[in-house]
């Protein structure tokens, strides 16, 4: 089977899967969490992978990298496109301090936790870049799941506001962090500092230039077809450059989206116009993640990530609560609500996988996948059971 036909199969099966799933009434919170996070698509991808039915063989998977690249760039682009600085100023400064402190704390606590558990408790080796990427993925919260739960269950307004802000903003911070982590990882791979800096600067320049070109073109009347063409073309330039120079695709897409969000008045309408592509792109991302997943008996790593992330989230939220929201009444176990991971952690490990393909990075996909299933279930249960009642 050719790569192209495989893509069609992915999309068609995904549609069939989602249509059937929508028709089934789900009563279990756990299954509901699976539905919210689109885990079925990952399972579908895995079933079609060389590990099970071999519908996508190794050659096809290699060829599908171009799609991976575009989908990841797209994911970063959409996050950037929604981050309008003038709009963000409306949020209280405490929200920003809280989220930044929170993500930094969780990231470092995760690194320390993983290191301690792996080296000291289980005596297992893990490469430092993999550990850092896993910690970064762990620091992210799922905005979609929170949004859906908040909408469905009418969570207290102020709390919902903070939770949603935190989930959205830590996505942006997560992508920025992976961009800068690249510098460190480049150095770790013994590339020269100058070269790493040149590459990342080049990608930023291309993203700025592409954003500038779009803004310049958008000053005149343009049809919807032209708008789509410019976005697809420029995103391919940005993603192609990042892929060419080995820089994070999420980061490159984010910068391009940020420039557009803050330089053109059309950003909002643009987002509306291209939104129809979001769902299929997300489905592709999940199915491709499943297809590339490297399932190994890595129980220890899963336990470490699960426990380490859980602990870091609870502790991080608790410390951030104490230090930032002094005197305010807060939920001591708020961290559980933010345990939900969603799609971005997967995108982060996939981004890393595209740049550093191999069993080690493929394993990260599996670890994150398993953790998402369980931690999203916990988060959903907690939100429904405790926060909503309050």
């Amino acid at each position, binding site marked *: 089977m050719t790569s192209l036909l495989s893509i*069609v199969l992915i999309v068609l099966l995904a549609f069939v899967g989602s249509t059937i799933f929508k028709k089934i009434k789900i009563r279990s919170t756990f299954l509901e969490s699976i539905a919210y996070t689109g885990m079925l698509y990952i399972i579908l991808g895995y079933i079609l992978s060389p590990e099970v039915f071999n519908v996508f063989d190794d050659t096809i998977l290699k060829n599908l990298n171009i799609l991976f690249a575009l989908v990841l760039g797209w994911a970063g682009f959409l996050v950037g496109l929604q981050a309008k600085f003038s709009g963000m100023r409306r949020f209280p400064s405490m929200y920003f301090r809280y989220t930044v402190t929170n993500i930094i704390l969780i990231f470092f606590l995760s690194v320390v936790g993983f290191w301690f558990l792996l080296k000291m408790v289980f005596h297992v080796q893990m490469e430092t870049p993999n550990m850092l990427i896993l910690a970064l993925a762990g620091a992210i919260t799922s905005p979609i799941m929170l949004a859906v739960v908040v909408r469905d269950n009418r969570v207290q307004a102020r709390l919902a506001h903070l939770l949603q802000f935190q989930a959205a903003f830590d996505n942006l911070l997560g992508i920025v962090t992976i961009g800068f982590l690249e510098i460190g990882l480049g150095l770790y791979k013994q590339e020269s500092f100058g070269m790493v800096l040149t590459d990342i600067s080049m990608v930023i320049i291309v993203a700025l230039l592409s954003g500038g070109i779009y803004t310049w073109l958008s000053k005149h009347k343009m049809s919807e077809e032209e708008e789509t063409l410019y976005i697809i073309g420029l995103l391919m330039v940005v993603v192609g450059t990042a*892929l060419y120079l080995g820089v994070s695709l999420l980061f490159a897409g984010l910068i391009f989206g940020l420039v557009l969000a803050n330089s053109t008045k059309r950003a909002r309408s643009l987002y509306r116009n291209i939104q129809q592509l979001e769902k299929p792109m997300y489905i592709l991302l999940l199915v491709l993640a499943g297809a590339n997943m490297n399932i190994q008996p890595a129980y220890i790593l899963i336990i470490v990530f699960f426990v380490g992330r859980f602990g870091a989230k609870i502790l991080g939220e608790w410390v951030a609560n104490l230090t930032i929201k002094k005197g305010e009444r807060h939920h001591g176990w708020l961290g559980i609500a933010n345990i939900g991971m969603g799609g971005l952690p997967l995108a982060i490990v996939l981004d890393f996988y595209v740049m550093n393909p191999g069993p080690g990075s493929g394993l990260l996909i599996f670890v994150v996948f398993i953790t998402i299933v369980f931690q999203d279930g916990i988060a959903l249960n907690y939100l429904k059971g405790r926060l909503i009642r309050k």
Partner: protein
Amino acid sequence: MKKVIITTSLLILYWIIKYLHPEANAAFAEPTLVTGIILISAYMVALLVKRIKLPKLTGYMVLGMAVGPIGLNFLTRDLLHQLHFLEDLALSFIALTAGGEFKYERFRKIFKSATLQLSGQILVVFIGLFLSLILFAPYFDFLANQESHMVIGFSILFAGTALSKSPATTIGIITELRAKGRISEMVLTITILKAIVVVMAFPLIIAWAKTYLIPDTTLNLVLLNDVARQIFGSVFLGVIIGFIIIAYLKFVKVEQSIFLLGIAVILTEFTNIFDMEILLTSIMAGIIVENFSEKGEALIMNIEKSSLPFYIIFFGFAGAGLHIEALSHTILLTAFLVVARLVFMFVGNYIGSFLAKETYLVKNISWMGYVGQAGIAVGLGTIIEKTFPGEIGSTFKLILIATVVINELLGPVFFKYVLIRAKESTVEG
């Protein structure tokens, strides 16, 4: 000025990246980057050429030539090969749209005129070129030293390929100018019919030419069976896919753009796997959807809305793939083939239109809408090259491609002129 700056900056950007890293970090990085640059730059060039009243398609091809192997060589032959699937995908999209433009009701109204014009074009172009090539053969290096049976064989092939007309160019110009009116409908209908007839008849033409070019070859049942399998297989697959699309429109409805992309991929891949004719299959699918579903028209409009990147890719890559160097080797025969085809096209169309008692515009101007050649002609050349391996096939293809280069550049310009002259363009320029 803005367009020049944007195009130049993107091209310079590519140079800088290549200068910093001669080798890409990941597979498919270069195709992604180059395709992105072509999408934007080709459109910028298209907007520029539009100012001098040339069609946008010409702009896409000009940019393709500029960045292709004969120009800056950003789009190398290797990259073109890697990205060939995009070209096929674009072709299936374009052919699906072309089929969707074929409305039986409309065809019924112009049945007599269209049939007469089509017959006039096919008979006069084929017979005229065939005879004139035999007559003037001693004046062309390629044919002068051949034995008479070889000259007959080549004349059959040249005359046969001259019948082809690019539906992509026709539909591209109509979409670009949002043309509406009798001439555009007539040219499109005849072009689609001609594509179907040529694609169906070509295997027979090859089989006939073989009897002159390859010693001890005769028309036999095995050969005819192969031809029939390819033709009817393509039509059958097209009909099946057409009804699948209709069923989707009726029962599923959602996410039509993704579904269409999937269908285009299925068309591309299935025709490759089963050795079918992609153009015939896609056109048939489009015809079925348009004529057997109430929602067909909306679907075709939907395809047209998202077709811009596909046109740029198809014509940009076509421009990059042009072997301009072929022109210099075969200039005399090429010029003869181009001019003779134009003359016979005019005569054939005039006779058909005259018999159909058509208007002045149809009789005297509309022939210019049938000049453009692209994918089908090159495809036919490839079939000939494969059928006659060695010097015969490759020289033939070289000459054929040289004529296609000229016709491909003239076609959009001529057709745009026709539509503007007929006042059927609804956009400026």
